[in-house]
């Protein structure tokens, strides 16, 4: 029995030590001198490089706005938290940022599951979240929340854009190789509808589980089909493995078109190499877009960081722009007032004139189709076609009932 007491005492001691180590004091209210924004990008794991790109973009945006005297007369402070992209960790970081450090706005959270978990807690935290990376439809659908705003295109918007441009792509008999994940299935559905409209035929449809490393079985089946074009939805490590193995089986040359969805992107150019020249892919951001704000952004970014921004940079900068536009319109940094001001707000941005739709908090902006071309001794995207939000997202998702 005494042993039990010892342990209880020990537990209390440890608890006390932990308590003493943890910072005390409640958070500072966001209404004081500075506007505090917490960014919680992944700092470890496969997404770490996207995380650091997101952080760069926010830093750039905050530095730019502070140099111009702040927003609504207030300076902006960026609080960088770390996470491993698991919802539990991100949630804890968000709580710490809001309750201990006084943040009222959250950005750079990466994956859709993190957003799903975070969105539920936003009202309790009295904070607004700006989603620039999580494309899952449900975040502006059944899981939509009043304090959450999405700046990046949803999966459906991108797919609708691809569907619109399908008749311009060569190839009559299409094969679909998708990841066995919500995005994969949604993509396949929308693609099939679009194919029907464009008079194309789908002759092959297969799904590989997430984290597949050996695509041999799927590739062999693909070869046996009579498809002359390929729509592939495999991303991250799966995408790299798939493309590399497709090349090993010497199958790339057989297809008139290889259309990827979220498959080839700038960070993967080096890992994939020249074999992807000619691939098509959805492109969220056109770095060569011809408007003043974008030219200024690209030039300034290139000067500061020595490289051109790609979609992760652009979307996070856009999230900052959206937040600042909301604060300006509300003439206040109070989350409740900013939220009201943002609904149905139209403003100028690096991707043109955009509107934040009030019904589902989705930013309405164009989506593009790009092709990989050689540029210098590297690769780049050439934007082939675009579709604006009226075409890709004519209506908000009826499943979103803003509670």
């Amino acid at each position, binding site marked *: 029995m005494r042993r039990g007491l010892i342990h*209880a005492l020990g537990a209390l001691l440890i608890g006390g030590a932990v308590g003493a180590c943890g910072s005390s004091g409640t958070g500072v209210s966001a209404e004081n001198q500075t506007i505090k924004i917490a960014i919680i990008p992944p700092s470890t794991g496969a997404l770490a490089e996207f995380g650091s790109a997101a952080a760069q973009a926010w830093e750039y945006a905050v530095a730019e706005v502070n140099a111009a005297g702040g927003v609504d007369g207030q300076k902006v402070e960026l609080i960088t938290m770390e996470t*491993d992209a698991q919802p539990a960790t991100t949630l804890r970081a968000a709580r710490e940022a809001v309750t201990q450090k006084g943040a009222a706005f959250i950005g750079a959270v990466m994956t859709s*599951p993190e957003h799903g978990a975070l969105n539920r807690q936003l009202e309790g935290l009295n904070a607004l979240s700006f989603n620039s990376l999580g494309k899952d439809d449900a975040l502006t659908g059944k899981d939509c929340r009043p304090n959450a705003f999405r700046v990046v295109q949803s999966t459906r918007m991108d797919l609708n854009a691809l569907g619109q441009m399908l008749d311009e792509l060569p190839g009559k008999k299409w094969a679909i190789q998708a990841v066995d994940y919500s995005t994969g299935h949604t993509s396949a559905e929308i693609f099939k509808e679009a194919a029907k409209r464009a008079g194309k035929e789908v002759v092959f449809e297969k799904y590989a*589980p997430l984290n597949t490393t050996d695509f041999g079985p799927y590739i062999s089946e693909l070869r046996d089909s009579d498809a002359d074009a390929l729509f592939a939805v495999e991303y991250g490590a799966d995408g790299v493995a798939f493309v590399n193995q497709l090349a090993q089986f010497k199958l790339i040359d057989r297809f008139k078109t290889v259309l990827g969805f979220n498959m080839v992107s700038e960070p993967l150019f080096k890992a994939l190499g020249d074999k992807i020249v000619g691939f098509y892919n959805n492109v969220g951001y056109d770095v060569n877009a011809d408007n003043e704000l974008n030219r200024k952004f690209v030039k300034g970014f290139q000067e500061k960081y020595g490289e051109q921004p790609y979609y992760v940079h652009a979307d996070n900068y856009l999230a900052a722009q959206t937040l600042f536009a909301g604060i300006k319109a509300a003439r206040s940094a109070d989350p409740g007032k900013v939220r009201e001001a943002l609904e149905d707000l139209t403003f100028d941005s690096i991707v043109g004139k955009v509107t934040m739709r009030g019904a589902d908090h989705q930013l309405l902006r164009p989506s593009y189709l790009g092709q990989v071309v050689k540029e210098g001794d590297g690769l780049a995207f050439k934007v082939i076609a675009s579709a604006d939000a009226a075409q890709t997202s004519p209506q908000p998702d009826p499943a979103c009932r803003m509670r």
Partner: protein
Amino acid sequence: MSTSTAKRPTVSVAVGTSSSDVSGIGLRRRLLLRGVTVALIALVAGQAVPFIADRFLMSLLLDGAILALLALGIGFLARHLGLISLGHTAFFGGAAYSLAIAATHWDWGPTPAAVFGFGTGTVLAAGVGVLVVRASGMAFLMLTLALGQALYQVCIQTAVRPYTGAFDGLQVEYDMARTFFGLEASEITSAGIFWRVVWVALVVSAFGLWLIGRSRFGTVLEGIRENEERMRFSGYATFGPRLIAFIVSGAVASLGGVLFALNAGYVSPETLSFVKAGDSLIAAIVGGIGTLLGPIIGAMLYIYAQTNFNASGNLHLYTGIALVLVLALLPGGITGGLTSMYRRFRARLKGR
């Protein structure tokens, strides 16, 4: 309390009580009374914590308490039967998912969904237990690992996406008007308020496990742990007690899962993963599976480590090092180490 100090503590043989101190009704009742008193004091003291700790610390403590339930279950099995399980996350996660499915898909209120989740987790434990308890040692470890991971694989299949949401996970949604033991939805997700419920669950579970451990049944379990053949030759059935012990430990884990799902409002396959199974086992071992409270301390330490090290990605580096160090140098875990320090201190006091 007679313990054999000559025996080096190992993972499978806990420095626990032997049967000889449960002698006489009088001693029993005094022990019981002391146990109840400690439990009541702990219960009341715990209610005061939200007044001392700030919001952030509160959320850490809550996470720690919920993980502690899972670790407690694992620790109980290890301590009394010498069985190491890598599959208790199946009950924790299974209960969590069942609650989420009942609440979100079938529109049950939080309380009935919680009961359903707890029940499903316990039934799962029974089902797995039947397959698993005849084995021991490495076979038991492999079987529990395999079955736990099989459940994980099932949950992420696209075929069951309508139920589990596969990789996307499942939000726990219920009518805002319905309450869980009088707590509303916003209170359930608030760490300071929900802590009371979780703390009660934790103290009650720990007390219950302590009672079982000290009872006649607990003695039988320890006999099985020491030498199963001899127990059987002495006329004791061994399958039944092992199964019951397994189900009890699974039930405690399920309780943790249910509370987790309610508080987080969101269940993802991560709760069933190999990583989580390993982490909960490590928490129990580092805390010390030779004692009842060791796993609780281990769980709190793990949450603390997770908060500080996870962002740099080095969490598993440190937990791996901790595990190796504890196993190689401090087999009783931290509480085991504290216990032996205390005993040596007392021995020195006695002038030995």
